[in-house]
């Protein structure tokens, strides 16, 4: 498995992603700098977390003008797996690869802690964990997923909702604290229609090792590996 981790100015979970896919999962992995125009023929792309361009203007809003973005767009259009984590999710929505937008958390604070999500639908990154409850960390100030009523209906209908926040037991959050940011319909991650592009606020790459006290996040990378093997 060959994975490109995209590096924007201000990306700061680029190492986290590289370490998880390279040192833990065992993929061949490298950084693709935002000024490059090629990703370097990967099997999958991770758009990592951080504060690209300082989150100035709006989280992810400036990154979408970087030279590398065309290559990501092309890769996604050809069915290539793309995982946007946290700021990466924000960038993918700003690029229009994923529907909806991420706005300031309802309580207006940055929040870092473990939360639980229920895997709602299968897809490139969730075929092995569908129906499971995963414990994953979040670390964001702008994670409140929002979209129009029509988009929400379409997401539901097309099985594009990848993760919903839930309680430890998998029950609906019924508001805060299980839904940590006020996301509409408790949405923590969504797929594109092709199910090859996933954006999510929680950090699976920071929960992929026993030494970190949690390897629930490995599920996503295992699913990706199987997807690539079966392709």
């Amino acid at each position, binding site marked *: 498995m060959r994975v490109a981790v995209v590096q924007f*100015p201000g990306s*700061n979970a680029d190492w986290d992603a590289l*370490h998880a896919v390279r040192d833990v999962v065992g993929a061949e992995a490298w950084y693709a700098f935002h*000024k490059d125009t090629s990703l370097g023929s990967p099997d999958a792309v991770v758009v990592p977390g951080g504060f690209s361009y*300082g*989150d100035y203007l709006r989280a992810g809003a400036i990154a979408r003008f970087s030279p590398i973005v065309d290559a990501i767009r092309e890769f996604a259009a050809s069915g290539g797996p793309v995982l946007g984590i946290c700021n990466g999710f924000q960038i993918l929505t700003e690029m229009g690869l994923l529907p909806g937008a991420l706005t300031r958390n309802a309580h207006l604070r*940055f929040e870092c802690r473990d939360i639980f999500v229920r895997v709602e639908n299968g897809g490139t990154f969730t075929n092995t964990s569908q129906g499971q409850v995963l414990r994953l960390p979040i670390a964001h100030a702008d994670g409140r997923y929002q979209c129009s009523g029509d988009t929400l209906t379409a997401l539901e209908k097309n099985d594009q909702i990848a993760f919903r926040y839930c309680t430890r037991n998998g029950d609906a959050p019924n508001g805060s604290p299980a839904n940590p940011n006020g996301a509409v319909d408790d949405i923590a991650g969504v797929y594109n229609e092709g199910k090859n592009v996933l954006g999510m606020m929680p950090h699976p790459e*920071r929960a992929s*090792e026993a030494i970190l006290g949690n390897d629930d996040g490995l599920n996503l990378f295992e699913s990706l590996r199987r997807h690539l093997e079966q392709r």
Partner: protein
Amino acid sequence: MTTPENFPGEQDASLELAREFGLAEREWQHVLETLGRAPSYAELGVVSVMWSEHCSYKSSRVHLSRLPTEGPQVVQGPGENAGAVDIGDGFCAVFKMESHNHPSYIEPYQGAATGVGGILRDVFTMGARPVASLNSLRFGRPDHPKTPHLLKGVVAGIGGYGNCIGVPTVGGEVQFDASYDGNILVNAFTVGIAKTEELFFGVAEGIGNPILYVGAKTGRDGIHGATMASAEFGEETESKLPTVQVGDPFMEKLLLEACLEIFATDCLSGVQDMGAAGLTSSSVEMAARAGNGIELDLDAIPRRTRALSPYEMLLSESQERMLMVAKKGREQEVFDICAKWDLDASIVGRVTDTGRFVCKATPNYDPFEDDPGSPNPVVVVDLPVDLLTDEAPKYDRPQKTRPDAPTEDAPDEPPPADLRGEMIRMIGSPNIGSRSWIWRQYDHIVQDGTVIRPGDGDAGVVRVFCEDEGETKEKFLAVSADCNGRHVELDPYAGAAMAVAECTRNVVCVGAKPLGLTDCLNFGNPEVPQQMWRFSQAIDGLAAACNALGAPVVSGNVSFYNETDGNSILPTPTVAVVGQLQAPEHRLGLGFRNSGDVIAHLGVPSRGVLGGSEWLVQQSGRVTGASPGIDLDAEAALQHAMLELAQKQLVQSAHDVSDGGIAMCLAESCIAHGLGAVVSLPASTDAPAHSLLFSEEPSRIVVSLRSADVDEALAICKRLGVPFETLGTVTGHDLEIEGICSVPVGDLADAHATALDAIVGESH
């Protein structure tokens, strides 16, 4: 030699102006005598910031020399941008702590944010990649009208900066006390890792080498910040907003990546960040360390505002700026890497052999003008570097013993009638309860290395990746920051020693061996003899404890004048310790883990001394009673025993007894995983129950261990002369202290979780 000129519109320097700039009359006289002439306006600015308490350490230098700074593990001691200790395989941990107290009181978000930015720069200037941060905060009374605003602003500012740049904030401490009502403390700590052979230093070496300015452009923010940090607060303080800097963590992230990339090319001979006193102190300090001179061309300074005068450019504390000395002919490599990271870089001067700090600028030159004209610079500053550094004033200020040092424990507070209720009230009070509202606002897991998170152990533990020629070694560092100013107030010597002891104890409790210490000495007005006495005593206490506990001081910072309208803060010599774990399996949390485990007490049992304790302060409304004191030999033995127990994996959890006494220690160990305990207090004197519960006497640790491991643990403690006493068992859902009280852990947990609600509102 030409006499430096004033710029158009600048006043002639005079005693009156010197005083306005914070110089004393005898200091002004010294300048006149040394120069044989009156300084220019810009020169007076330079001298006054370099001689400010903040930059010159003029009241503390004679005392700081008593601190132990050496040890086989010390790679770099005090005097550089940060200190460094060896962590094996050719790598070192680079760390420092610094205060940003005054700016944070004036503008809490930016004050705290730029405090974090400054300490990060100090660390990566050394060539180290920052891997973890801590902060030590002090606020006024929880019900002081300003406390919510200040707490919220400071926490958001620390998070805003640290989260963006991507360095995990893995712990810290906070205390609320009336003495900080008008003068909060924000002390920020960062540790990074570097290859020891590739450390970078702040030296201007190589005559003729070009000096490069990299990073943000210069504005008018923060002019005379260092002088502000060297004066007391008064009513007009809130009009000092322009002296507070504004941070841009995105710029700093670019600067961090660019710097580490530039350092790797080996095209620099020195580097220093522009912190307090900006361009002036960075260039003067680099020149001084190398014994050289520096000449700056101020016309070339990148700027973001019109009509900057030399004085303003030299004293601006605009953030996210670095000064680099490139090897001659290799400037282009710096420019190329800066271009990659979209950073500005310009050549602004060169290293000279004159031993003088010379600045030139063209009167009325402003690059923003449509036709700025051609530069025709004149000399505006020409000062001996020595005058600004080694020859800066150094005072052995008069000291006076505190006349009313209490020697008797305060006996007059009546014991509480309902100890069960008292337990819940205490665990839910702002100085004891959960800090999760704070650390949840910090990204404490970025970099994929946090293996003990905030609140889970007595210290934070991070895994760091040491990469050398394609091979990566994982190492594990423990970090903690501590001080309890109340104990320092009661006895500055013992209290300062207790701060070191608690900090190293915390590091040992997570299974790490302490390697070194950094300090941030927050005190009142050094010109007040009793304050100076406190400072001097505290230095001796720190020195004794650092020696006894094997933690040499490798870096630090002094913050005087922490008082408002004559009211001083509690003397607060905050310390932070970096330790290393031999193996990740040795790490320990503070919570009881398994039902059926034995609970044991290590160390000498309490005598029931309540002096300086949180309980007594809450009851009496003041810091009172006799200091509990500390036996450093007993402390050292305790820490040796604890470390051996952790390394032999004989204990399941460890938690030191500190704020709130053994009662709160046990409660916290129960709350962590929702497990109950049945214990009796360690055998002791016939002191009343509440004194034994809430005494904050040091040198005690509560551990839990498998019953099968008790004999071996006991033998180790016996061999090292450390009292070991079993107290009871982890069991059920109540914390039952036999003969005293029984409290449901759920009730304790609820109170603990909501302890800050009264200040910050609903936590969720």
